[in-house]
């Protein structure tokens, strides 16, 4: 049917681009050690962009199997939109090759039958029941399992024609302990390829239980100002405040703190990379939402601003090249977004310390001001190591300014951890807890 649509479009005197998706997603939810809901959803659709006399129109259609008359109407409707549109058209990308990123698809996930997935979800449920028996009624266990497959395709009037099938699977565990106090522990891990469930379930439960024990005993502390360590989860929260300043559209429209590459914006111990080409990672793809090949973009290298993230439109507006960062689905037009974000820098051993203030999880980063950089985040969990003792804390606030924080980074750890598509070691910086 895509070929049919391309045929129709080639007969029109317009520039065009189609982005199509077809996929299936399934998930299971466990509440209080019971498997209570499951779903299997199908989605498919086509987004069409038409460039006409310097203007662009967009519309989408759900479903992927349409007769010729429906496709004709769809094309004509979008052309009509382009004719009345005032959105400037800067051209679609040319066919520029690109590589296939490895290990983003696993046949075993695509072909995982619902019954087999159900059995896996049951094994997580059973394991949680075992733990519940062991730990007692103060504990509430919940969790989830989700998996899916999706094929994304793109074609345009400049000769781009690409498609890619990817799979994904995720597992989550959530534990609450409530008696005279409350504590929570969570674990989430996503995969592109089929993992060893048995191992992952055990690991996830172990990590979530560690966290719940810390959280249950955590108390508010008086406050602290000085060197502290951010664990990957907390790094992900604060770096998310920085990211929009690195998007080309925000730079162009002067909503970014930064205006040109080459400036020193962080400490030389800090490097930040956006890389969509990493094998088997959650934020990886072979081509972006406009068909440009994915690439590795060093955004900040040893404190120096090296690059912004671009899609085709803003690259053209700013006289540069797309970085392969157009993000979209069939319902939306492309916009700039990141892929895998990797924190690196001056590596030191930041594990096994005998004295440290460590922030494990913070929340509320979406309330921060990305243009001023000021943030005040609630500490969900932190701990202080002193004289061989671990003293957990929570309910304080971690306050600061993201631009000052990245300037205060002293070093980063050697071991990286994945938090979704964010990949980071521990980070040692200067901060304030109130």
């Amino acid at each position, binding site marked *: 049917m895509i070929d049919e649509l391309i045929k129709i479009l080639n007969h029109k005197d317009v520039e065009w681009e189609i982005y199509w998706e077809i996929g299936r997603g399934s998930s299971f939810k466990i509440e209080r050690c019971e498997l209570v809901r499951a779903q299997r959803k199908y989605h498919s659709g086509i987004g069409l962009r038409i460039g006409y006399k310097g203007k662009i129109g967009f519309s989408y259609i*759900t*479903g992927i199997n349409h007769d010729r008359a429906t496709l004709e109407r769809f094309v004509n409707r979008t052309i009509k939109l382009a004719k009345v549109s005032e959105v400037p058209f800067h051209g679609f990308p040319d066919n520029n090759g690109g590589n296939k990123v490895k290990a983003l698809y696993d046949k075993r996930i695509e072909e995982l039958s619902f019954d087999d997935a159900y059995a896996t979800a049951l094994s997580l449920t059973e394991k949680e029941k075992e733990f519940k028996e062991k730990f007692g009624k103060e504990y509430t266990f919940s969790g989830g399992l989700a998996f899916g497959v999706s094929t994304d395709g793109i074609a345009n009037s400049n000769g781009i024609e690409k498609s890619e099938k990817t799979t994904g699977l995720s597992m989550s565990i959530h534990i609450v302990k409530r008696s005279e106090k409350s504590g929570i522990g969570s674990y989430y891990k996503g995969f592109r390829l089929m993992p060893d469930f048995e191992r992952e379930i055990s690991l996830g439960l172990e990590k979530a239980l560690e966290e719940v024990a810390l959280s249950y005993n955590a108390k508010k502390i008086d406050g602290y100002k000085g060197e502290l360590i951010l664990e990957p989860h907390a790094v992900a929260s604060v770096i998310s405040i920085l990211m929009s300043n690195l998007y080309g559209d925000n730079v162009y429209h002067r909503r970014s703190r930064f205006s040109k590459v080459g400036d020193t914006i962080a400490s030389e111990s800090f490097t930040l990379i956006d890389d969509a080409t990493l094998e088997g990672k959650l934020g990886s793809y072979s081509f972006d939402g406009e068909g440009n090949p994915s690439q590795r973009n060093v955004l900040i290298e040893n404190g120096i601003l090296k690059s912004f993230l671009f899609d085709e439109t803003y690259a053209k507006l700013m006289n540069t090249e797309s970085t392969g960062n157009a993000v979209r689905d069939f319902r939306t*037009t492309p916009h700039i977004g990141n892929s895998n974000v990797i924190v690196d820098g001056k590596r030191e051993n930041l594990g096994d310390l005998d004295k440290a203030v460590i922030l494990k999880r913070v929340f509320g980063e979406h*309330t921060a001001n990305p243009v001023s950089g000021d943030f005040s985040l*609630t500490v969900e969990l932190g701990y202080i190591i002193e004289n061989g003792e671990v003293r957990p804390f929570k309910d304080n606030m971690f306050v600061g300014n993201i631009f000052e924080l990245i300037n205060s980074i002293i070093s980063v750890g050697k071991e990286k951890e994945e938090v979704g598509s964010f990949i980071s070691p521990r980070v040692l910086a200067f901060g304030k807890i109130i």
Partner: protein
Amino acid sequence: MEIERLMRKAEELAREYGIKYYEVRIAEINATHLEMQNSHLEEFSSNIEIGIGVRAFCGAWGFSSANDMRRAEKAIETAMKIAKLMKGNSKVYLDDPTKDRAEIKAKKAFVDVDLEEKLELVKTVDRLLMDDKIVNRKITYGDGLKWQFYFNSLGSEIETIIPRIRLSFSATAKKGNDMQSYWEIFGGTGGWEIIENTDLEHWTTFVKEKAKSLLNAQLPPSGEFDVIMDPELAGVFIHEALGHASEGDAIKNGESILEGKLGEKIAVEELTVVDDPTLEGKFGSYIYDDEGIKARRVEIIKNGFLNEYLLDRETAAYLNMEPNGHGRAQSYNYQPLVRMSNTYIEPRDWSFEEMLSEVKRGLYLIGDKGGEVDIANGTFMFGAKEGYLIENGEIKAHIRDVALSGKILDVLRNIRAIGKDLKIEFPGYCGKGQWVPVDDGGPHVLTRALVGGLL
């Protein structure tokens, strides 16, 4: 007719799979979206989408959806197959069938307003926001007309039509390396009249001036302070500090700090908190929820006592209660979850001046910058757009980038004064794995919280 055929098919399949209860939502959404930044139109789309979502229950839920109506039967069958496979022990509330056709009427339907006129609106706002010191202007307009047909195995057949409209604009001011933004959002359930009734000249000037004045505002202090919240901030406060923790699924799953506290006094006597989807014209309003239950006003806290949870069919059955119309789904392709609608604090009799005179050293905080809550630990946080220091009952220096944090059970007892000036006109979206339109508000409220200032 296609729907009747699907109703028959669902009945047939339910018999075949031995399904106790099922429900089907077929929706058609007609949506327009425009976005402009610095006079540069970035988004201009108008789309129609049709889809089906099916839930089947057999002690546990099976759900399936499709956005291609040719897969409608397949979706019904898949949901039922899953439910059958799951063999759970949950319960679901079953009621008498409802047959109804309900519509939130617009005075001036936005579907009858030309795209050109909508574009002109966005351009007008862009023009009005222009100013030497404003480096970025961003305007977003969206409208959506949602037609939905709901039917279930009990014989309910409910057709609803809900129009929603929203306009937001922001201005970013810059001085040296420093930047500050301010924004306002307008919207509700209704039509183009909501836009026509908005004084664009006044509000664009207001937004510009605020963004510029924030460049000269101080950083907030940090620590525990007396805080007066304006109606907008009081809204996000109660949404985060109480609303989420009172959602039935959080209670059922043993996650909420409010579990087992129904009937207990958890707040000051003056506090009454309401969630009301039936309020006329509000952004979070609806007539029936996505489980075919009539929307109902719920008093979550009544005179300081935890009075009622927000419930859907499943959580109501679990708690041996009746659902109160709070099962909402983002769209046809999502399962309903327990959600808020329009959440607000009932007014009392304090004037703002009386409240101010109560504060020796504190903060007057204004506007909503979003928030987040950890319902298990009972900790929440939320951000204000701006504020002022208060010294000896007088408003002093302007402050910026303020966020607050508190413990649910402490902060509800720390409320010292509730104003008489109720406002519920702050449309937004609430995220909980799904996005649903909500509104919130209240009068001015005086409480005590941890202020995460940078000084």
